[in-house]
């Protein structure tokens, strides 16, 4: 096959003059592996058309050849993959991709190539792929769906995901404004201008690279006596120079949430050649805008006509053909036919004539075509086939001809022999669909206006939101400007601003009427025979598919949509939905508005995941909270574990040690010498006020009123449901002052819980709570030599009489102001040294130096877990999971019988008192070296295969070097009464572990070491 000379082609379709492109500069780009050229100002679509590239993709299901249909975000066919993996984006609309030097784009859904597609066989077999095909075919066997899905995805996939990490940077930002204007066309500009002049903070978001909206394609209009684009330029300059105005082009307002929260997606550098993109700038930015007032000037999208063969490359919206001629200086074909049902469609025919393109005929559905543009076309001598329909098209990879036939008297069929008209471009106009997507997302109600055949916003919609211009079904330019100006004035006045200016920019203009509405154009054969009439080109849904769905009993438009997939592509039915509704309504014999619309959901056009993530990736994905002593742990080679957002030292391996060896060494050192642990992450809440003790009495299960100053007590906190919520030690610091500690992971939620009760249930209590978690670093010394080590560093009397277990004292430790608390989570005599956190590292290092002669050993969270498990101390979140009561844990001793507390009432429920609830027990394995896996299910009766009756599960399990055997804690049904009974833990490999129920306290049950 010989390659066409692209230069000749380009010259042929690129018009000699006109348009907003810079012919003095040439840009090279690659499409489908072919090197082509265009100019600054081109979209990828316009450059492809200039190069005579009319076949640009294959359809989703049937792999039919497809061409460019539109010049905007509604494009269903010309989807391209831009860039090279991993910096690649699928599903971009060629109509919205700006050309840059070196742009590389590939068509989608074409395999092995655009010209020769294997999947095209689907098209020949299309009668086997009706609507609902997936539902009908892949129902059985259910387990095979994953296989089916993979095959279907490969055949039907929309583009390719990048395979590597995204190399680009993205940004997210909040923004606030008095007025957000969506749409930079005439209405939007008028609204923004007047509000800006009144002093409002304005954000103007325009999806296009340029402001102007449809004026970019209709530059011959005049506004205030000036050429329209001059007016646009002046408006843009004024807005950009206003300090309180932010003009965002290439920015798609894609979602509208409650309270005027609107999400914008800005493509910051996508339009630049990769080597011209400033490295400091993000590629894209997500704007999270909170606007006091919003004006939606989102315009309208031309509606195609549904007729046989309407998807052939060369079939294009009439307004798009105008855009290519007027904005891009490209002839979208050699020989055109216009197929229209309204006067407005004639503009495209006139634009093409002006550009020197032949227009072979106009096929007009109207019985007696009339209107200002129709009249102009008649004057120009255009051949008009009135009361005619196009009943078929020809051409494999490009349109070669259309057939037109006369409509019958009732317009429901055609009569007479069709006549064939040669053409390579068919321009189609079926009226306009106001772009009400954002308005509907804002929960605005829309109403059907039959005279323009469009859904428009109801007046009196959501407060602080107004629509202006074509989105309201208002099309004449002067009216759009006036509506925009009025919306801007109203917004500014609502905001309490003075607006002096009262006249809107003036312009002539007309709408597209008169029209004759027809949602499914009749053909020579019944629907479904003799050629496909597409409603949704992107998802390959035909009029016949809709009728099939109706025959099969679907009535709700939402069901018809899901069954046929119409409107479910990335274009979300921007072109097809109203036609689909019209066809369904006609078939059901209902008025169109009774069928209603499907729900409009974000995004308006697709948004990259990168923009949603912004910079919240890698190290910035989530805060990694570090203690004041963290740098020492790093220097000492600690292995870390995450506890909530905190990074905690897990264990400190010496060379050659694995986790087991390291933990065994650390655990033994605590029992035999002295261990040191960083406990800074514990939550700390300062509680002050005359009612502080009463408050503690209500939030903890045990009694607090008799705790003496300088003493500490363990407390258990329940939810209202009686389930264990948190635990910790609270110390009384003064007459009316306490310091509560919480578990590391629950610090914030406990604070929230306490504040909620204080503020909403007990406002009469005189108590103030202050979070002081990070005010203090906490260094815990535990073990037989803990006192000896600490004594070297402090003036505090540490003797057992002066500072017994659960008492505290204040003084200085290693030069830092300190509070030392005798509290133990290991079962050893232990001292918690609390110092202002900036001293934490210095105090830790001093302890290490002082402890060196005594073999001081840093121990991490894993050793701590073993040590506390040896003592049977629970960890909230490990032994408890929100369904465990203190009774289940055998902690009745901590439940006061003489006062009320949160959760008390729930503990009296019959279910809570049942004897067969899961209860905390200890487990000893038959083989003392075997360590049960945590989470293992336990059974009393072992069977060869599951299912077996499970009676409980292992919550904590370790090897205990101090006991010389493994130990485990478990929750077992009725376990407290089953001491000595045997249980089995069946393993995944078919094996089992035999164990015996014991007390959960394995080490020093009398607590002698603790009080030493």
């Amino acid at each position, binding site marked *: 096959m010989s390659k066409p000379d692209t230069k000749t082609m380009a010259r042929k379709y690129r018009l000699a003059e006109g348009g907003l492109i810079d012919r003095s500069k040439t840009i090279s780009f690659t499409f489908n592996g072919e090197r082509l050229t265009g100019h600054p100002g081109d979209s990828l679509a316009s450059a492809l058309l200039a190069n005579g590239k009319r076949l640009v993709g294959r359809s989703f299901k049937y792999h039919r050849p497809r061409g460019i249909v539109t010049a905007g975000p509604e494009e269903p066919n010309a989807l391209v993959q831009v860039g090279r993996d991993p910096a690649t984006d699928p599903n971009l609309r060629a109509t919205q991709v700006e050309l840059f030097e070196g742009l590389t784009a590939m068509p989608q859904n074409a395999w092995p190539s655009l010209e020769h597609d294997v999947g095209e066989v689907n098209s020949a077999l299309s009668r086997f792929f009706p609507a609902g095909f997936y539902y009908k075919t892949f129902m059985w066997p259910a387990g095979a769906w994953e296989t089916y899905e993979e095959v279907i995805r490969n055949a039907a996939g929309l583009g390719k995901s990048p395979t590597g990490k995204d190399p680009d940077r993205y940004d997210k930002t909040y923004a*606030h404004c008095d007025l957000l204007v969506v749409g930079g066309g005439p209405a939007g500009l008028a609204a923004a201008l007047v509000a800006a002049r009144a002093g409002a903070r304005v954000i103007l978001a325009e999806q296009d690279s340029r402001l102007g909206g449809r004026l970019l394609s209709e530059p011959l209009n005049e506004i205030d006596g000036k050429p329209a684009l001059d007016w646009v330029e002046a408006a843009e300059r004024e807005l950009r120079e206003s300090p309180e105005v932010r003009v965002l082009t290439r920015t798609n307002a894609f979602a509208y949430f409650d309270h005027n929260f609107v999400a914008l997606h800005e493509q910051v550098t996508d339009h630049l050649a990769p080597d011209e993109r*400033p490295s400091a700038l993000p590629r894209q930015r997500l704007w999270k805008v909170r606007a006091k007032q919003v004006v939606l000037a989102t315009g309208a999208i031309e509606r195609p006509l549904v007729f046989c063969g309407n998807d052939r490359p060369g079939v294009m919206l009439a307004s798009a053909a105008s855009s290519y001629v007027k904005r891009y200086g490209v002839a979208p074909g050699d020989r055109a036919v216009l197929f229209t049902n309204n006067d407005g469609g004639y503009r495209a025919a006139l634009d093409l004539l002006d550009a020197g393109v032949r227009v072979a005929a106009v096929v007009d559905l109207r019985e007696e075509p009339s209107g200002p543009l129709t009249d102009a076309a008649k004057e120009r001598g255009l051949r008009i086939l009135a009361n005619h329909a196009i009943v078929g098209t020809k051409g494999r990879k490009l349109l070669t001809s259309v057939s037109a036939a006369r409509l019958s008297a009732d317009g429901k069929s055609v009569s007479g022999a069709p006549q064939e008209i040669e053409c390579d471009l068919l321009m189609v106009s079926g009226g306009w669909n106001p772009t009400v997507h954002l308005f509907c997302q804002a929960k605005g109600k829309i109403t059907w206006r039959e005279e323009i055949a469009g859904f428009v916003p109801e007046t009196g919609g959501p407060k602080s939101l107004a629509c202006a211009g074509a989105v309201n079904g208002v099309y004449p330019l002067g009216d759009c400007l006036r509506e925009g100006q009025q919306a801007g004035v109203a917004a500014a006045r609502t905001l309490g601003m003075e607006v002096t200016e009262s006249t809107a920019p003036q312009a002539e203009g007309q709408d597209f009427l008169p029209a004759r509405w027809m949602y499914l154009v009749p053909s020579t054969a019944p629907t479904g025979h003799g050629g496909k009439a597409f409603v949704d080109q992107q998802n390959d849904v035909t009029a016949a598919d809709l009728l099939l769905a109706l025959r099969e009993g679907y009535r709700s438009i939402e069901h018809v949509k899901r069954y046929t997939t119409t409107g479910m592509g990335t274009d979300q039915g921007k072109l097809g939905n109203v036609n689909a509704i019209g066809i369904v309504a006609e078939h059901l014999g209902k008025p169109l508005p009774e069928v209603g619309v499907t729900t409009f959901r974000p995004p308006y056009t697709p948004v990259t995941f990168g923009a949603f993530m912004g910079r919240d990736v890698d190290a910035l994905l989530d805060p990694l909270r570090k203690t004041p002593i963290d740098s020492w742990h790093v220097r000492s080679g600690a292995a870390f574990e995450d506890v909530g957002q905190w990074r905690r030292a897990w264990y400190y391996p010496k060379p050659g040690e694995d986790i087991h060896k390291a933990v065994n060494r650390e655990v033994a050192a605590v029992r035999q010498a002295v261990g040191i642990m960083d406990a800074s992450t514990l939550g700390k809440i300062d509680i002050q006020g005359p009612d502080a003790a009463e408050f503690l009495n209500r939030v903890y299960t045990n009694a607090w009123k008799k705790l003496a100053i300088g003493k500490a007590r363990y407390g258990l906190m329940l939810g209202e449901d009686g389930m264990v919520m948190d635990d910790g030690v609270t110390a009384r610091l003064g007459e009316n002052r306490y310091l509560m500690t919480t578990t590391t992971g629950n610090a914030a939620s406990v604070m929230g819980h306490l504040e909620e009760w204080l503020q909403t249930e007990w406002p009469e209590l005189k108590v103030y709570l202050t979070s002081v978690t990070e005010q203090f670093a906490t260094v815990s010394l535990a073990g037989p030599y803990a006192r000896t080590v600490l004594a070297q560093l402090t003036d505090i009397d540490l003797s057992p009489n002066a500072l017994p277990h659960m008492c505290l004292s204040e003084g200085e430790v290693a030069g830092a102001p300190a509070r030392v608390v005798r509290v133990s989570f290991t079962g050893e005599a232990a001292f918690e040294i609390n110092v202002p956190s*900036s*001293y934490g590292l*210095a105090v830790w290092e001093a302890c290490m130096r002082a402890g060196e002669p005594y073999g001081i050993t840093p121990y991490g969270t894993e050793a701590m877990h073993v040590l506390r498990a040896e003592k049977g101390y629970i960890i909230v979140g490990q032994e408890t999971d929100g369904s465990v009561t203190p009774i289940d844990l055998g902690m009745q001793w901590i439940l006061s019988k003489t006062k009320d507390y949160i959760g008390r009432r729930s503990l009296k429920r019959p279910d809570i008192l049942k004897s067969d609830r899961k209860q905390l027990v200890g487990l000893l394995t038959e083989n003392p070296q075997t360590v049960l896996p945590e989470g293992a299910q336990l059974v009393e009766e072992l069977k060869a295969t599951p299912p077996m009756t499970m009676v409980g599960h292992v919550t904590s399990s370790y090897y205990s070097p101090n006991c010389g055997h493994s130990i485990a804690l478990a929750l077992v049904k009725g376990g407290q009464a089953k001491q000595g009974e045997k249980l089995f833990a069946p393993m995944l490999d078919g094996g089992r572990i035999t164990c015996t129920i014991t007390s959960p306290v394995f080490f020093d049950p009398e607590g002698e070491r603790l009080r030493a």
Partner: protein
Amino acid sequence: MPNAHLRRSPLAQLGLGALATETRGPGHDVALRSVPFQTAINLRGPAADERFARAVEELVGTSLPPACRALPGKGDLRLLWLGPDEWLAVAPPDQAHLIGVMESAFDVLERGLSGQHVAINDVSDNYTTIEVSGPRSIDLLSKGCPLDLHPLAFPNGGCAQSLVAKAEVILDRDDTPTELRFRLMVRPSFAEYLWAWLSDAAQEYGLSVLTSA
């Protein structure tokens, strides 16, 4: 504080000193500065009680600030509104004696306030401060803070508790005579994350790191 040389900044391991300059560099529209060891005292009490308000004013040299505002007091002290019954007195480092003075003053006060109570907490080490300054400060903070920081909504002297990215902060706008300046008081464990986040977000504006106080 005794033995202040033992104190260590939560950002010490970043080695910011090596990067720092005295003033914002050319073409740099934002600057970050680490300001560790500020004295911070949390006050709770009945705003409506005149005796309480007067006692605070005598101690810190300013009346209680209105909602979402900070007021300068004696010396370099600032009093920040944190809530209807909560304030934060912020002063330069190592003014621990302030806490003692306040504690005893409030002890006396509390006994005098019939049916009212107050609370005071030294939270100097519960926070560290990162200063954001320069003409693009608001743009930078808006990337992570959902509040409207426009001068009309958040003027000089404004303060609020909010988020910057995923870190809770107390924002205190305290402009220099020539520059926008925000103080971000953040819990020490979040400081490294917040510094890294701000540095990354500031790239497009040009970033200077200023010498620590």
